[in-house]
Every structure is written in C-alpha cells, then in structure tokens.
C-alpha cells in the first residue's frame, strides 16, 4: 500500500505543476464522470481525483497502526500494573492451579512461604513475624505490602513445561515463582531494635543503586496472626499499626529540610554563598511571626556552613525570605515533592506548598521545615541518598529478582537512574556541611568511630487540633562520608530533638553495618 501511495504521490506532484499552470477551469471536469475522455486524459484526471482518496487512506492506515501500537504499548508498559490491580479477578483462578510463591530476603532467608498441611490445606507463614510486617504485608483478610502489589507474580509459575506436565499427571498444583528482595534481614533487625518501643520509621537505601536495604515502621503487627488480631488492629486508632509510616507517613521535616533550603540558596548564589552571614541572638521576628532557635540557643555570628551545622533557625528563616519561592518549589518538586514516589507500594506524597506570593511568616516557617511542608521518611531517605550518590537520584526498588521455585531467574531488576539533580559543586558543598554536622554539630554522637558519617538532624515540632504537641526526632544521612554505602532516614515520633533519639538510633545501624555486616557481603 505504501508503495502504491508513494508512486502516486510523486506523480501527483509532478502533475500538479502542469495543472496549476493551466489554472482552475480543469477542475470542473473533475466532478463529472469521465469515461468520455481519451485514456491519457482519463488517467490524469483520475490521479488528481485520487489525491483525496490517498490522503484519507493514509489517515485510516495510521488509525490501524495506532491500534497495533497501542496494543504493544499496553503489553510493554501497562500490563504489569493491570495484572497486579487489586480488583483483578484472574488471580483467584490461578490460585486453584498454583501454590503461592515464597518471598526471600537478599541474604536468602524465607520471609513468607506457603505451608501445605497433610489434608492439602494451604496456609501462609512468616518466619520473621513482625520484622517485615509492613513491607512484605499479609495475604489474608485482604492483602497488603508486597503480598498485594506482587500478587500476580507470586501466583505465576515459570516452572519448566516438563515440571508442569509431571505435576498435572500427579494432579498436584504447580509451585509459583519466588520473589527475592533487596532487604537484608540483619540490617532490618538492627533498624527494628534501634526504634525500640517508639513509634516511628527507619528507611535504609543503597545510594548507588536505589536498593531498599531495610524499611521498618512501628508500631507493627504479626502477619501470622492477622486474622485473630484483625478487629483489634482495625479499631486501634492511636497506634494505627497497619499503617506503613515509612512510605505513607506525612511528618513535618523540621531541620532536615534545611538540606534543600541550603541547596536552593547555593543555587541562587553559586559564587557568593560564602559571603552569607547572620548574627543569631536566639530569635528572629518579621511582621507578627517570631522564630526561635531550638531551646532558645544563641549562635552568634555565623556563615552558611556554621548556620547549617548549628541548625540555626534564625539564619534559615532569613534565607527563606531571600530565596525565590518559585525556583525553591521547582527544586523541591525535582526531588519528588508534590509527586508520587517512583515505587509501586502504597505511598503518600510529600508536599511543598509555598506559593509565589506567600507571606514572610510562611517563607520563614517553610525554610526551617515547619509550616505546611510534610514529608515521608522514605522521601528524606531519597534526598540523603541523592547527595550520597553525587547528585544522581536512583529509582528505589525492593525486589532484586524473581525466580522459579527451583532457582532459575525469571526477571532481574536492575538499578535505574531517576535523574541527575545536583551538580558536582553543589554535592561537594552540601556533603561537606553534612559531614561537619556529624563531626562538630548536632549529630556529634556519631563521631569518634572508625568511620565518618554525614547527615542532618531535625527536631520537628507539631501541634494537632486536638491540642497534643510535641517534637519528632529526625536524622537523615549516609555512611560513610567518603564512599557512601548506606543512606538512612530515621524518625522517632515524640523523640525530642534529633540528637537525643534519632541520632543514637542511626548510630546503632551504622555501627552494626560498619563493624559487622559490610564484611559479610
């Protein structure tokens, strides 16, 4: 067809020259039936008349090809999501033929498996009980976590044809594929212990790949007994144990947000940010808003680095009033604020709401991580990982590969760059500041070890409508400063200042990894 059209088109255009030269009277013939003309004339008129036909058929052929193209797009892009859609009923059909596959940690431990009793009844068990409750999820009383999102993969079998035939003969079900996660059980355990009995969350990422190495949210639950505990879990509003705080929590970021505020300031003052100075006398007032430093500390004269290291609210409130709100917002949005996280587990958006004509009060509050800004712990882990990875954010992922029950790889997940978000200079400046926070600032408790970490603390004050008030304790950072292997985000609800509870928790994780786990890999 294309050939037909092409040759016609070229003849058309050569013909058109002739026709135009003779001007339009010719056109009148065209509406007549034309069998009275001699052959050459007939052919000529036919070509002109067919021009419209050719165009229309190009359009229609494009329509057909667009259908084929959409079907390809459907299979390549949309298919996985639809297969894993929560409403998808095709899966219950598979359940009759396939035994739900296992879930393993990166270090080879079983996190979820299907046990089959002698009478053939199946039950799902979780050897680590509460430890992986939120990320692995549960598969009875509805589904959550990986059990929900990767339901289709767990109920698919890529076992060899021969196996499938043998099993059909024996009239047994086929074993579904296994998921092997990127999470490490020992690292997960130390994060779990570090949170203790507090409410909060810890997320650990590998900066160079985006692998999720650990993700803990507390309070938690035991997926083995979810059926018995269901009513209690559902009715307990004060703990909301089923809620994955690491991904779905929306907390004020407190001073950890100064990482992004500083980046914005450096970006607006690439050559003279060193000239920034501020004299802190414990508070700053503008219009009717007064901002004080944590516990009323007075920092005196500071440059940008000192303000960052002391986490001086006055200095950052000043910066907040100076920077351009629109480019500030754009910067935060490039770091995934106001957007869905690129992860397929349920997550909440981190929000940055500063408008271009915001009041000074709003600007000051936003710059120090209070105000209307909220973040998930996972989001802050991504920010730390981006600095640690030289400014490039990696797409986070938690499944290393899918394999058949006997270990043949079905699908291998590979690191994917999300975006380069910072220049080399910006990374150098920020990582220098963050290192100084650990060696000589609010995160000093991590210093004095064989390793050098980098990070930023936060003490995020909150007040709810119910009148409850308090301070969440934050630490975000990475290990080690020279050659980052871990990026971490810790929040402990009502933990007080960052240095009082989040920093020691992060130190526990860093110690465990540095002195023990790094040699096991």
């Amino acid at each position, binding site marked *: 067809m294309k050939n037909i059209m092409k040759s016609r088109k070229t003849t058309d255009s050569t013909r058109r020259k002739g026709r135009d030269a003779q001007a339009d009277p010719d056109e009148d013939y065209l*509406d007549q*039936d034309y069998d009275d003309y001699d052959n050459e004339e007939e052919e000529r008129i036919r070509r002109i008349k067919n021009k419209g036909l050719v165009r229309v058929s190009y359009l*229609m052929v494009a329509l057909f090809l667009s259908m084929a193209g959409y079907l390809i797009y459907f299979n390549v892009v949309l298919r996985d999501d639809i297969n894993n859609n929560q409403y998808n009923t095709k899966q219950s059909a598979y359940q009759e033929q396939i035994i739900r596959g296992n879930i393993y940690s990166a270090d080879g431990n079983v996190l979820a498996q299907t046990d089959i009793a002698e009478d053939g009844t199946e039950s799902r068990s979780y050897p680590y009980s509460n430890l992986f409750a939120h990320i692995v999820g549960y598969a009875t009383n509805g589904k959550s976590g990986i059990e929900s999102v990767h339901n289709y993969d767990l109920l698919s079998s890529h076992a060899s044809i021969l196996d499938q035939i043998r099993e059909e003969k024996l009239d047994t079900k086929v074993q579904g594929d296994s998921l092997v996660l990127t999470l490490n059980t020992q690292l997960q355990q130390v994060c779990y212990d570090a949170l203790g009995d507090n409410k909060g969350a810890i997320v650990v990422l590998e900066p160079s790949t985006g692998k999720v190495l650990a993700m803990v949210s507390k309070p938690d639950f035991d997926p083995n007994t979810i059926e018995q505990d269901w009513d209690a879990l559902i009715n307990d509003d004060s703990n909301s144990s089923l809620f994955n705080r690491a991904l779905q929590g929306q907390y004020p970021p407190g001073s950890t947000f100064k990482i992004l505020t500083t980046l914005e300031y450096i970006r607006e003052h690439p050559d003279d940010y060193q000239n920034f100075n501020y004299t802190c006398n414990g508070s700053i007032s503008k219009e009717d808003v007064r901002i004080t430093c944590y516990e009323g500390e007075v920092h005196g004269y500071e440059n940008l680095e000192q303000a960052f290291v002391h986490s001086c609210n006055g200095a950052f409130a000043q910066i907040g009033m100076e920077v351009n709100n629109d480019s500030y917002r754009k910067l935060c949005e490039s770091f995934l604020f106001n957007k869905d996280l690129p992860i397929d587990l349920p997550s909440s958006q981190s929000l940055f709401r500063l408008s271009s004509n915001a009041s000074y009060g709003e600007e000051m509050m936003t710059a120090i991580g209070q105000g209307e800004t909220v973040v998930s712990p996972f989001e802050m882990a991504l920010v730390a990982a981006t600095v640690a990875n030289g400014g490039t954010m990696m797409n986070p992922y938690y499944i290393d590969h899918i394999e058949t029950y006997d270990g043949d790889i079905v699908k291998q997940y590979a690191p994917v760059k999300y975006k380069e978000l910072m220049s080399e200079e910006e990374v150098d400046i920020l990582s220098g500041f963050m290192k100084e926070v650990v060696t000589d600032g609010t995160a000093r408790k991590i210093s004095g070890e064989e390793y050098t970490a980098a990070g930023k603390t936060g003490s995020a004050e909150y007040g709810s409508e119910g009148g409850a008030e308090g301070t969440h304790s934050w630490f975000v950072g990475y290990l080690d400063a020279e050659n980052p292997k871990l990026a971490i985000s810790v929040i402990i609800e009502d933990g007080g200042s960052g240095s009082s509870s989040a920093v020691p928790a992060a130190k526990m994780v860093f110690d465990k990894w540095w002195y023990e786990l790094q040699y096991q890999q």
Partner: protein
Amino acid sequence: MDKLIIEFSKYVLITLMVIYTLQSILIFAKRSEEAREFLFIRQNVVMFCLHFVAFMVLYLQMNQSQILFFYGEQALYLAATLIFFRHLYPKASKLAINNMCMLITIGFIMVTRLSYDQSVKQFQICVIGTVIALIVPWLISKLKFITKFAVVYAILGIGLLVAVAVMATVTNGAKLSLTIAGITLQPSEFVKIIYVFCIAGMLSKSTEFSQIVKTTILAAVHVLILVISTDLGSALIYFMTYLIMLYVATRDWKWLALGFGAFVVAAVAAYFLFAHVRVRVEIWKDPFSVYEGSGYQVAQALFAIAAGGWFGTGLYQGSPTEIPYVDQDFMFAAIAEEMGSIFCICTILICMSCFIMFVNIAMKMTKNFYRYVALGLACTYAIQVFLTIGGSMKMIPMTGVTLPFVSSGGSSMLSTLIMFSVIQGLYILRKDEDDSFEDEEYYEEPQNYR
C-alpha cells in the same frame, strides 16, 4: 499430555497467523498475476491449518464429538465459499475473499469457544448470508440504474432508523434491535450500507453548495436519530463516514475542518447533555474507580488482555467469559486473552489489508458513484474496527459496536457479508469495463496500482 499439546498449539496458531498476515501484506508487492495466485493458494492452506489446529484444541478441551462434526461443516463451508466465489466471479479480488474467510474463521473459533449454542446460530446465519453475498456482485454489475436513487435510499434508511427509535426493544441501555416475526434484527447495521449509497448518490450528482447542504441535512438526520436511540457507536460511524466522503468528493479540506469542529462541539455538548456519555467517558478515564458498577466490563476486558500477554493463555485456559457481552462488544479482548496480543496485532493488520484493498478498488473506479460507495463502505468498516478494538483496549471510550465477521451477532455478520460483496461487485464491474474497453494498458502496467 493435553497440556503439552495445548501449550504447543498456542505457538503453532500464532505462527500460522503471522505467516498469513505477512502474506496478505506482501501481496501488494507481488507483480505478476502468477506469483499472486500462488500466494493466494498458500494463504488458503494456512487458513485451513489454523482452523484445524484450533478445533483440535477445542475438541481436546470440550471432549464432545459434536465439535468434530461442527468442524467438518465449517471446513466445508469455507471450502465452498472459496470455490464458489472463484468460479462464479473469476475477476473478484481474491485477497478480499481470503481475508473475509480468515476473519470468519477466527470468529468461528472464538465464538465456538465462548458458547457452542451461539456458534451454531452464528454459523447458520453465516451460510445464509454467504448465499446472499454470492448474488450481490452480479446484481451490482447488472443493475446500473442503482446510481440514481439517492432520495429513495434516504427515505428507506431514515424510515428504518425511525422505526428502531420508536419501536425497538432496549438492550444494554441502547435501542438497537427490532423483532419482526420472531427474527431479531439490528437495522442500523443494514442502513449503514443504504446510507453510503444515499450519500454517494447525492455527492456524485454534483458538489455545488446547495447539493452539499442537502446532503448534509440528510446525513445529519441519520446521525441525530441514532443519537436519540443512544446508539452512539453507529452515530459516530455514520458521521465520520459522511465527513470523509464529503472531503473526497469536494477535495476541499475546509469541509473536513468544519466537520471536525462540529464534531468537537457536538461531543462536548453530548458530554454535558447526556448522562450515559459522561458515564462512558468516566469509565474510559478510570474504569477501576467505578469497578463495582459501570466500569466492571472494561476493567474485566483489560484484565483479560493483560492476562493474555504476547502469547495468550491458550484456548480454554483463560476466563474471557468474565467480561459481560464478551462475544459482541469485547470479542477482541477474548481473543487477546486466549490467543495473545501477537495474534491480535495480526488481526488488526488483516482488517487493515481489507481496508487497503477497498480503497484500491475505489481508486480504480471511473464512475463517481461507485468510487464513493467503495470509499464509504471502506470507511464504515475501518471506523467500526477502530471503535471496537480501541474501545476494548481502553484506547478510546467504549461505544459498543461489533468486530465485523469476528463478533457474534447475526445482523453484523449479514451486513458485513453484503458490504464485502458489494465491493466485490464494484471490482468486477471495473474489470469488465477494462475488458470491454480494450485496454491492455491496465494489465500490462500494474505499477500504476502499486
């Protein structure tokens, strides 16, 4: 062992389908009649193989001997159709015949898989329809006066549509079918053909402004009645077909732009005026948000296509019957689930091959009336295929029309058979003219058509 055969047959079916499709595209590049003839025969062999393999699988799954008899009847029918067409009309387009038989074969396989009883009915209608279809080309080539009765067609078509709007029984929320003496018909399927004749008759008379106004009014009446009967799919087909015929007749893109503008205005108005239009759009935007209600059908279709993937689950290995009205509106999703997306892409390309053949015929016609008829029918066909396939993939909102030849539904089958044979009639007419005329040129100079 059955499992192995089914798994293996899946790939055999896809391979056969790909071979057939490549042949029906390659045909346009073959120059000599002899080479073409050879390719046509090979296409038939491939088609019969595909039919055989598919029914073998169906037999293994259903384990009923009646399937074997049914297979025999269908194979006989296909052979008879091919032989009769070739011998009664040696000048007919063999590609169009082959494609028609191939699409009917796919329909046979899938309808039988979905519902045996339905497929027996479908088969009977198909046989009757084919007998009619064998007479139509002869009528077209003999009854040259059919070019003159545009107004008669208009009265007939509008009359039938009004009858539907007034008396029809409501099915699936749309007034579509009339029951006369126990036979249920869906007149809009047949009016489609008369309508194309009507518009072709009007536009071939003249393309002066007054004539265009008259034609537009006639077309608008058709479309409006369909909109009132809430048969939006047909309304869209009628409207687009008119627009394209008008553009080709006048060669003036301004009409196309004007018509398209009118379409946008009408679509926006319809969105705000009619609740059922809003529902369709909402389903299209996110079928899962209304999963429990109106979105269920489209959501199930998407699950089916996704479950099938590239290679499909294999016949009887999926659950396409979960989709409400799967055998009519969502046949494409059923094929995608069990035969796979590659098979479906081939189906799309075969439909495209039919369309290209039709336009090719339109280009060769000398009389404007016949040109417009061929073009108009080609467009109704292409747009209908687009609406149903695009709708079941959620590429566009669902409008509820059938996939010609493949979906179950007697009216659709009959009208498509007639449509194809009308075009065959035109093809034969042209070849007759060539012969009576002399001109060697058209045969000796095939590069003109290539």
